[in-house]
């Protein structure tokens, strides 16, 4: 064991450090180009005069002005608020409720969990197709209720421009609430049993234990769930396309379907890019503070 061996191992170590960089480099380069580069390109498009073809003439905030003057964009934003709000609140409520119910030493818990969670494995297009059939006013739920003897039952939300967006909520909740349940269930299983036992010994009732101790102690999961759901809501595209096609008219448009229509059907590249940037800004406003707090928390722990 001498100096030569240690130099050798230094050399090895340095080679390995480089190998490590070489391995990560292609992915990093891809990310720089396909994520960061593309964002810059889209941002630029939103400042250009582009309509049918991408052009690079500077137009300032013109495209954003045009975007915010469009009634269709306002409908999309309003729909996102309705859809996102209801989707998040209902999924949180259902997910939390189901998790608490499943946490009561239930027989066949595995089977029930599978049943609550399987919709998550399906494509939104499959979900949309199915709910479109169930909710169709002619032969679906409405006819079923009539056959059961409820003759005055009326359910035409799918073709009613005031309510079409709520059918998207129904289908989206069906699809995603099981996943939120799984998140809460995992968290419930991680709560410190000694604290619960101590509270019980002090004579606290079960609801008090849940609302006073357990739910506050899994607060971080609420935050994670809200972030996951908000992210899903902003990106929602397939479900609307399959369920309502954005219609009737454009009454159930969301920003994602708006952007797609402008880009691929209306030849309004500039407006489309501007709407994409608005979506990015929305997601960043949710994600960046969350990631920041998560990463800082991570550093504290390790």
């Amino acid at each position: 064991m001498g100096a030569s061996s240690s130099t050798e191992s230094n050399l090895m170590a340095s080679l390995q450090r480089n190998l490590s960089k070489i391995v990560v480099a292609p992915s990093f380069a891809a990310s720089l180009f396909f994520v960061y580069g593309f964002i810059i390109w889209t941002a630029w498009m939103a400042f250009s005069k582009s309509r049918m073809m991408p052009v690079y003439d500077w137009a300032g905030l013109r495209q954003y002005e045009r975007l915010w003057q469009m009634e269709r964009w306002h409908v999309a934003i309003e729909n996102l608020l309705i859809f996102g709000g209801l989707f998040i609140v209902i999924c949180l409520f259902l997910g939390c409720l189901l998790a608490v119910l499943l946490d009561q030493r239930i027989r066949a818990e595995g089977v029930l969990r599978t049943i609550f969670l399987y919709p998550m494995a399906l494509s939104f297009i499959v979900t949309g197709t199915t709910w479109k059939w169930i909710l169709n006013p002619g032969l679906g739920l409405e006819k079923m209720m009539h056959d059961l003897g409820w003759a005055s039952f009326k359910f035409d939300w799918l073709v009613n421009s005031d309510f079409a967006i709520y059918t998207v909520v129904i289908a989206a909740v069906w699809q995603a609430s099981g996943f939120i349940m799984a998140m809460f269930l995992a968290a419930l299983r991680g709560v410190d049993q000694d604290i619960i036992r101590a509270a019980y010994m002090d004579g606290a009732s079960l609801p008090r234990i849940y609302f006073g101790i357990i739910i506050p102690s899994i607060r971080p999961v609420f935050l994670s769930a809200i972030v996951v759901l908000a992210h899903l809501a902003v990106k929602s595209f397939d479900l609307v396309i399959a369920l309502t096609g954005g219609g009737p008219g454009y009454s159930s448009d969301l920003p994602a379907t708006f952007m797609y229509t402008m880009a691929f059907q209306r030849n309004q590249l500039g407006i489309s890019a501007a709407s994409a940037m608005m979506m990015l800004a929305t997601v960043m406003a949710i994600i960046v503070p969350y990631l920041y707090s998560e990463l800082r928390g991570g550093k504290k722990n390790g």
Partner: protein
Amino acid sequence: MADLQTYGQDSGLKHTLLRGLLYLVLILFSIYYLFPLFVMITTSLKSLTEIREGSLISLPRVVTFDAWNYAWNEACVGVECSGIKTFFWNSVQMAIPAVLISTILGALNGYALTKFRFKGANIVFAMLLFGCFVPFQVVLLPMSVTLGKLGIANSTMGLVLVHVVYGLCFTTLFFRNYYVSIPDELVKAATIDGAGFFTIFWRIILPISGPIIVVSIIWQFTQIWNDFLFGASFSSGGSAPMTVALNNIVNTTTGVKQYNVDMASALLTGLPTLLVYVLAGKYFVRGLTAGSVKG
């Protein structure tokens, strides 16, 4: 776990009633979640006349697989009327290479970023991670231009590239979080024994990566198979993946609306991911919750 059995002070009748109520509520919820699947299956097995006469929840009087056969072999997607089967194979050809490539790259990235950390590894990881949260709308336009320039627009290869690029952040995240918990001493000991970067990966790291490989494959397969946005944006006609074909079949406005064919097509599209979930769902759930819940 806090539950009525351990902490419930009420014994006897009240306890039994509460348990009964609990199971009743759970069964009602199960019906809610199973209802659409039930409707899909029964509708796909009925004839069109029976669909018009019967109700949503009635069982088929005569079980017929005509709709399945028609969906697979004859249904019209655009002008092409040779069923959804071609598009099923498009999806297979897209998903398999994309899943494998993104998983392999993710494993190597995760390993390099945790066991052979270089200066700035954290920043590189954070920058990669950012890609998971970008709404894809923001990359749609430049991607379609780029695919055109590369000459792989409207091709399965183009879609493979897209899915690999935007799946990388997830696979890297999975493997990185998994490898962080593996003791560094394992790698250090092997380094002292003279083993190199790839030897250690191959001999030590890979053999214990089973659970996270399963998670990565299931996640990526589900994401890629179920994707619609990229498929609809970057493919056309015969090269489209199955989800795009399904949407096309359902929204064809010509001719009589064939609900049974729609449902059969939807089931065929959902079947692969559903199978994966039922067969390997245990690991999927375990892995997903382990990754997303920190609190």
